């Protein structure tokens, strides 16, 4: 029987626009210190560290951790596109679960540049060439940012299939801004109306600018430990990981039939199914969710991949208000990638941070009343999807 793994400390820094942040090592060290303080332990208690980032030379993880302490522990640099942060958490969880460590750190950080994502390595096989090939066959390729073309294309396919209103996409962003208004860590805290969102410049039909997550700088950290470690340090009733699963692409991503599948739908669905099966809990048991809303279209698709509604049911879910306070779930109380920001390597850890606060009842103005079960969904094209269920009590 695998050991239970707890999340005893979390911390993060305020997310910033590119150019306005501190260097990655400073942001990361602040997040790590905040997580250590939250857990009430010292750096010397950490036995392993997993550091997630995608932009930067090798061993930025060490450089970030060294700011806080140099105890000679193993430090692993983790790079898994937009699922980097949760991949770091997963490795830390596996280390504790397997007994390789009693207490491990997962930290994510990103110091991004302005503008849409691009490739740094044009002299070798592009890791996304399968994906781009599918996209080119289905809808061509143009000057819009590639990620917007991919998720926007998935949005087109979805609209075509179900006749989804433009307003439905915009409402996701409206909700994200409403939530972010109450999150002091978020980048965009100003509320926007559906009209404003739809009137912003079109990036790739149906996505307008306010429906795309911004490049962001930031960091977050989480400390994971065994039951024994928690008991030894007098930590009572911690948040624990009820189930976690990662999936990578299946042939369905590349069979050239669907932008939705190319954008990781089956990864998310299979990861979620595995988590529900392992935890014995279903979507109905979940109170609060942080999911990967890099674009509004992906939030809608994620509802379905996570089983919150049947396929084609996302529009109803949105208009029923089942994604916000008063509805069946609250998705992205933090404002999500759309409004809190998407510092790629940090995002997965920041999602975890928000959910831990929610389960402890520490989320202040954005607290989801009586949250007992939380779900995290973190997706990177290329691809990896990590779904995690957290519980308390």
């Amino acid at each position, binding site marked *: 029987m695998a050991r239970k793994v707890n999340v005893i400390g979390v911390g993060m820094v305020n997310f910033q626009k590119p150019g306005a942040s501190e260097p990655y090592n400073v942001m990361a060290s602040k997040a790590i210190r905040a997580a250590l303080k939250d857990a009430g332990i010292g750096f010397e208690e950490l036995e392993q560290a997993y550091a997630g980032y995608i932009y930067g030379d090798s061993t930025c993880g060490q450089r970030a951790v060294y700011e806080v302490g140099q105890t000679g522990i193993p430090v692993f640099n983790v790079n898994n596109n937009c699922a980097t942060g949760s991949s770091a958490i997963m490795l830390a969880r596996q280390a504790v679960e397997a007994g390789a460590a009693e207490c491990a750190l997962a930290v994510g950080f990103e110091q991004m540049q302005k503008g849409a994502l691009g490739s740094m390595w044009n002299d070798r096989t592009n890791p996304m060439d399968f994906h781009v090939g599918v996209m080119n066959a289905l*809808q*061509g390729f*143009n000057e819009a940012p590639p990620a917007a073309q991919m998720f926007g294309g998935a949005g*087109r396919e979805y609209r*075509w299939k*179900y006749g989804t209103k433009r307003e439905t996409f915009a409402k996701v962003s409206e909700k994200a801004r409403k939530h972010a208004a109450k999150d002091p860590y978020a980048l965009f805290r100003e509320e926007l109306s559906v009209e404003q969102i739809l009137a912003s410049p079109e990036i790739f039909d149906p996505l307008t600018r306010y429906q795309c997550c911004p490049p962001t700088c930031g960091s977050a950290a989480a400390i994971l430990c065994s039951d024994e470690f928690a008991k030894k340090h007098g930590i009572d009733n911690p948040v624990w990981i009820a189930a976690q699963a990662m999936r990578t692409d299946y042939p369905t991503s590349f069979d050239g039939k669907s932008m939705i599948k190319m954008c990781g739908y089956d990864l998310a669905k299979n990861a979620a199914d595995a988590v529900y099966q392992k935890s014995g809990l279903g979507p109905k048991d979940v109170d609060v969710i942080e999911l990967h809303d890099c674009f509004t279209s992906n939030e809608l698709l994620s509802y379905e991949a996570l089983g919150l509604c049947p396929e084609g049911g996302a529009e109803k879910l949105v208009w029923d208000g089942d994604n916000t306070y008063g509805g069946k779930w609250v998705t992205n109380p933090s404002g999500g990638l759309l409004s809190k920001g998407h510092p790629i390597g940090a995002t997965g850890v920041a999602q975890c941070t928000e959910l831990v606060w929610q389960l402890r009842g520490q989320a202040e103005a954005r607290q989801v009343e009586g949250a007992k079960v939380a779900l995290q969904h973190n997706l990177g094209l290329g691809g990896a999807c990590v779904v995690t269920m957290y519980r308390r009590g």
Partner: protein
Amino acid sequence: MAKELRFDGRVAIVTGAGGGLGKAHALLLASRGAKVVVNDLGGSFTGEGKSASAADRVVEEIRSAGGEAVANYDSVEDGAKIVETAMKTFGRLDIVVNNAGILRDVSFQKMTDDDWEKIYRVHVLGTFRVTHAAWPILREQGYGRVIVTASAAGIYGNFGQANYAAAKLGLFGFASTLALEGRKKNILVNTIAPIAGSRMTETVLPPEMIAALKPEYVSPLVARLVHEESEETGSLFEVGGGFFAKLRWERAKGKLFRVGRQIRIEDVDQAWDQITSFENAEHPDSVAASMQPILANVEKGPSQGGNDLIDVDESLGFEFPPIESSYDERDLAVYALGVGAARDPLDTRDLQLVYEMHSGGMKALPTYGVVPAISAILDLAKKGIQPPGMHYGLDRILHGEQYTEVLRPLPTNAKLTHKARVKHIWDKGKGAVVVTEVKSYDEHGEELIRNDVTMFIRGAGGWGGERGPSSDINNPPARAPDAVVQERIPENAALLYRLSGDWNPLHADPEFAMAVGFQRPILHGLCSFGYAGRHVISKFAPEGNPDFFKSIQARFAETVYPGETLVTEMWKESDTRIVFRCKIAERDKVAISNAAIELFKEVPKPKSQATAQPTAAKSEAAAPAEPLSADIFGAIDAFLKANAEVVGKVKTVYQFKLSAPASVWTVDAKNAGGGATPGETQKPQCTLSMSDGDFLAMCTGKADAMKLFTSGKMKISGDVLASQKLEFLRKIPPDLVIERMKARGAAPAGKAEAQPQAETAADASPTSWDVFVAIRDHVGRHPELAQKIQTVFVFKLADPPSAWTVDLKNGKGSVEEGETKKADCTLAITEANFLDMTSGKADSMKLFTSGKLKISGNVMASQKLNFLQKIDKEEAKAAVMRARAAGAAGKSAAASQPAGAAEANAPKVFAALAQRLAENPKLKDEVQAVVQFRVKEPEGAWVADFSSPTPAVQEGTSDKATATLTLNDGDLGELVRGEASAQDLFQHGKLRADGDVTVAHRLGFLKGLA
């Protein structure tokens, strides 16, 4: 097989479970593991008496089958006691099935208070009491399932059941509200309208029917709804006799009257069809959805009023579909003669208006600017295109005022596109004023003429709307006129003027004129308008030159008859503004009042031709030989053979498939000794298909590869990303191309013309010229650099050769083309390497050590060049754009003209659609929507109405469209010919859908049209 739905551990209350439906519900739930409170008062079905035996029998049946149950004999009016039984016996409660009921059927006229009261108490009060007692328990545990039992009698009415029907539909409202209040706590509430043979229904249904309506046919729905995995809530179901169906509200599309205006009974009566028609009906499922039309109406703001003749809300702002017309020298001459020009054929100024071979060039009489606009309005009217909400006839219209402005002198012939809209509607009390604005654009899309046509609509005012600004303007000053022209209008003037397009018989037919109350045919108001324009121009435009005319404003105050004498009195208000009026000498009446003409200070020139003309002349003279694609491939071949390192980098085999004329080429930039050869290859990694012309444009920098790709002119298959590596094509030295051209005997007229120079196209990749422009811009912004760096650099570039001096020593520094002898440090490098170095793709140190960058003079000073890395990219781009715009405008004009535009598909397609629709009215039922098409390139708009009782296809736009589909004319053609699917176009972003996207699924009606 589906998994068994079970209720283990759940506790249910079923009221009225002693028999009939309730008993069936209880038995079914218990058989699947639920613990059941079997409630039954044991009374008769009319609510009299009480006995424990009914409930006991059911409990016994459950227990004997191995289930758990307890009996309860309380009235549902004592709901709390029933709930108490559940909690005491089983310790929890999950499911409440409100089933108990009685009947008191009696016709309404015989109904007593007691009949009403009893029914209310058992059905309504009872359901309330039981559910209300259970509610806090369900809320607390965050789980509950509630069933409320309604009836078809309540939904549809049933003879003799006024009391029962009222109670039953009331319960549906009750359940719908609880569904909302309970949702957050996972309490789901649904209503069933069952029909089953039971004690209650025995009185109203024949026995054989009751046999078919077994209660057991209802209970599975109840169980399905109260199962823990059900997500259904707030719903209503009809169930019984094997039939299961959900029911919802349907609402007609309805009629919206804008708020803020009086709504009369007659208005409602007139809209009755709309109010009651269920075509395009909606299905509101919440109060919010119910309110939606009202909120939308409020959002539109208060009504601007109107009446039977003019509905301002519908008309104001209406944009007519664009309409085209053209005119030439003949039209101008006919017009000028019609307004009295050139009576003296020796007057050279006037002759210029009517004689196309005049030595000074022909000129347009500028008041002609009103003619195409009026013709456009008449054409639109003839096509039946008029603003919605305008319901008056021509008999009410008077052309009241006219404003015409030319933005520059009218060319002597032009093809115009007119865009008209309803600009103002004013309520003048008895009448109304409608101002229609017409803007006319030339072939280049440049605006040429503006007209405001002011129509007075007799008897159409009086809705209490805005009066509009005072029109008491352009009043002559008190002094005597500064100039007066008197001119007799010939008797046949109207017959001449009508040749310019106003064919109203009133101006020609004596009988017609008499019939409408005039002594004889009258002169066109716009004819006297033209006379007046001529008079003002002759007196006040510099040298009487009509090109100085800018605009005219006039009010038509009195009818003029041909043969009368027009006296134009003019007052010069400023150099560019003349106020005037026209009197009729014979009758001393003012025919044109409140009038003014404005003049240009300087004659404006057309934008699009100012730069284009001289260039065109130049290129005709030079007419350089153009390279062929074979020349380019020859150059590629030589280049690849000479530059093995390019092959090492690109590592791709390309196939080029060119069309018009067709040729196939293989470019092997992968294998050592590769090159370009005609013909196909077995294994291309990346295949590019495009026209020969586009290929040449791409290679000579006139077209951007990415744009060719995104616009569909270049198709790429295979490894798409490999196409990015085609950048190497830009590095091919132009000399190689020229050599090939010479070899085939086509000597290029000028080397510069044939070079693949990127700066000829504004959107091409940067060249060293761009980089130096950016450096110059940067140096200009940072005068401190010169002090810091103290060096004069000279760059000597090769392939193609150029030289630049970057002086960061003297004064504030400068960057100039050319060399200087005072260089401190000279850098020699090829153009390609220079670009790589300055864009950061190549390291200057490596170029230096590998011998590709040669530095002479002060070698160490070259290290100070790192300021180049600090140049802001955005600023650099802006500087280049500015410089290109200023210096290369002429060059870009030489780019190839688009081939003669093919005829548009859309007009034919929609004409054919109209016919298809007329021949096959069933098409309407397949589509069931108002589909608006917005076609681009060339622009057009059509509305295909498959929704109204009289389906139709019309040119124009509609605000009632179910969906608006936007696409290019070419793509429409592909759709019609079946060469592309709507889904494919949509996914490619070539078909844009607003509104209901699913309408685009049903575009089959377009296939095969035209």
